[in-house]
């Protein structure tokens, strides 16, 4: 019969509390250097970014390159809002929400081409979109043109980053376990067949792009308020490749994979800082290696719970094997 794997309250809540406790201890007792703390924040922030990318590139299975554009719009919207409207630090949630919503709005528009275009063509359209956003920002005087926005209040701290990450994980998980998430996976496998089992493909794509852009927008907003400045050059090809490396390294269609990918890549990038610009070569190189030897990434279409489940099953099986062999020897 079917063994139901229930969502354990314990299994979900306890890790969150442990991680929160570790973060609080690390920050409040200053157990790690500021630069390490910054890396931790990058990890959290880019995990949100990768979760967003994974909604479209992973679960929906569309090769989209729009994430740089989404991040730019979220970052700029948030920066403008904090400069002109939400100047107090308690308004930070509003700033994040504003950044996310603006990006989501643009995401909704970007979902329209995905109704018709497929594969390579859609990839080119989304690439075009990202580059349009970049050059638009480069030429818009109001946002400082190519100089970008400076002196943005540094509201982001580690609590905000990981609070948002928790929120992002919850949102993605809820969507994935609903009918919308199931229809995304169905469309990834066979769009025509899913239409012919009554799945509303347009709606599913719209939702995927909206959630994706929303999360990416929030990560952009966090980034701006972490660094205190932003410029269009941050949302070009490097950003696009960064996002892809993290998604493919961690694994498509996996929440765990998104976080693992972001973590590994951020640590790698920071440790290779001495290489200067040469470290970006590592990014492209790694992407090639992943595509050849690790096509599914580390956690492709798997979650941590699946891995734990498999390990448990392995051990219980070896145990039963042992008892059987003991019995037979008797």
């Amino acid at each position, binding site marked *: 019969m079917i063994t139901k794997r229930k969502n354990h309250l314990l299994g979900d809540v306890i890790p969150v509390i442990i991680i929160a406790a570790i973060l609080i201890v690390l920050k409040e007792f200053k157990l790690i250097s500021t630069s390490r703390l910054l890396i931790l924040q990058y990890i959290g922030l880019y995990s949100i970014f990768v979760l967003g990318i994974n909604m479209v590139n992973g679960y929906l299975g569309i090769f989209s390159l729009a994430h740089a554009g989404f991040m730019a719009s979220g970052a700029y919207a948030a920066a403008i809002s904090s400069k002109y409207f939400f100047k107090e630090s308690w308004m930070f949630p509003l700033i994040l929400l504003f950044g996310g919503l603006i990006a989501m709005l643009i995401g909704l528009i970007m979902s329209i081409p995905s109704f018709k275009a497929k594969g390579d063509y859609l990839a080119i359209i989304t690439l075009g979109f990202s580059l349009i956003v970049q050059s638009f920002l480069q030429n818009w005087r109001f946002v400082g043109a190519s100089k970008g926005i400076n002196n943005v209040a540094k509201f982001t701290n580690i609590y905000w980053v990981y609070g948002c990450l928790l929120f992002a994980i919850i949102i993605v998980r809820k969507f994935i376990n609903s009918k919308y998430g199931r229809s995304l996976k169905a469309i990834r496998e066979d769009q025509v067949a899913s239409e*012919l089992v009554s799945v509303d493909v347009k709606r599913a794509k719209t939702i995927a792009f909206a959630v994706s852009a929303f999360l990416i927008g929030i990560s952009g907003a966090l980034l701006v308020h972490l660094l205190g400045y932003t410029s269009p050059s941050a949302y070009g090809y490097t950003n696009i490749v960064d996002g892809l490396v993290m998604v493919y390294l961690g694994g498509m269609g996996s929440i765990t994979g998104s976080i693992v990918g972001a973590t590994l890549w951020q640590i790698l990038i920071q440790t290779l800082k001495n290489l200067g610009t040469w470290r970006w070569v590592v990014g492209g190189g790694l992407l090639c290696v992943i595509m050849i030897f690790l096509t599914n990434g580390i956690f492709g279409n798997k979650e941590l719970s699946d891995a734990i489940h498999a390990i448990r099953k392995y051990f219980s099986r070896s145990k039963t094997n042992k008892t059987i062999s003991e019995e037979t020897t008797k």
Partner: protein
Amino acid sequence: MNNEAIVSFKNVCMYFGGVKAIDDISFDVDEGQVFGIIGPNGAGKTTIFNVLSGIYKPTSGDIYFHNRRINNLPPNYITGNGITRTFQNIRLFENQTVLDNLKIAHYSHIHYGIMDVIFTSNRFKKEEERIEEESLAILDFMNLTAYAEQKAGALPYGAQRRIEIARALSCKPEVLLLDEPAAGMNPVEIDELNQLILKIRNQFNLTVLVVEHQMRLVMEICNEILVTNFGRKLAIGKPNDIKNNPEVLEAYLGKVKSNE
């Protein structure tokens, strides 16, 4: 037009450039029938299904479902409202579990919105429970319970065929379109399939349209048969009439000499 009919084609044409895949075909299917569509290769049988399920928009002519014109409706809408099909070459979601395959097909009958998902409302929980129960019931009915948690793509061919039918049933159809369900089956399996089709029809009060090459299936279970050739309607009638129709024999076997 026959008002009793659940599905009717009225002078439907479907051209692909110069190719006339369906050319001026009209027929009515009554409720509760098993309606067979036969014909040689390239006779336009599958195109009839494609037009009916909304993949193609007919070049001209009208298709009615419950006396409602459905030519221009999108496929997911048609499927969600009562006409569901299976495929000639099986098209399951291979990397999903069998249970998830069925759950995906419940899409149009799940009544919750995005807000219910975000807040995990009671309605969300109830609906998820409901579709899980319903999916398991269908699996049970199709003798597929053992496969529920397995990946659909890893299963044997016969099971995949049954899963496809189970998935189609999850859309709660009134009309079920079976596209060559007996392809690759031996006579014993076909007899089993015959029983299954009749059982499904009676259990779910369906009208079944079936495209098939296997005479063993068509002649035994169909109430009425449409014969097509080169996209045109050749004959329509009861299995016995079709069997003895000279034009049908000609299309299938070649010209019969009159003195024989």
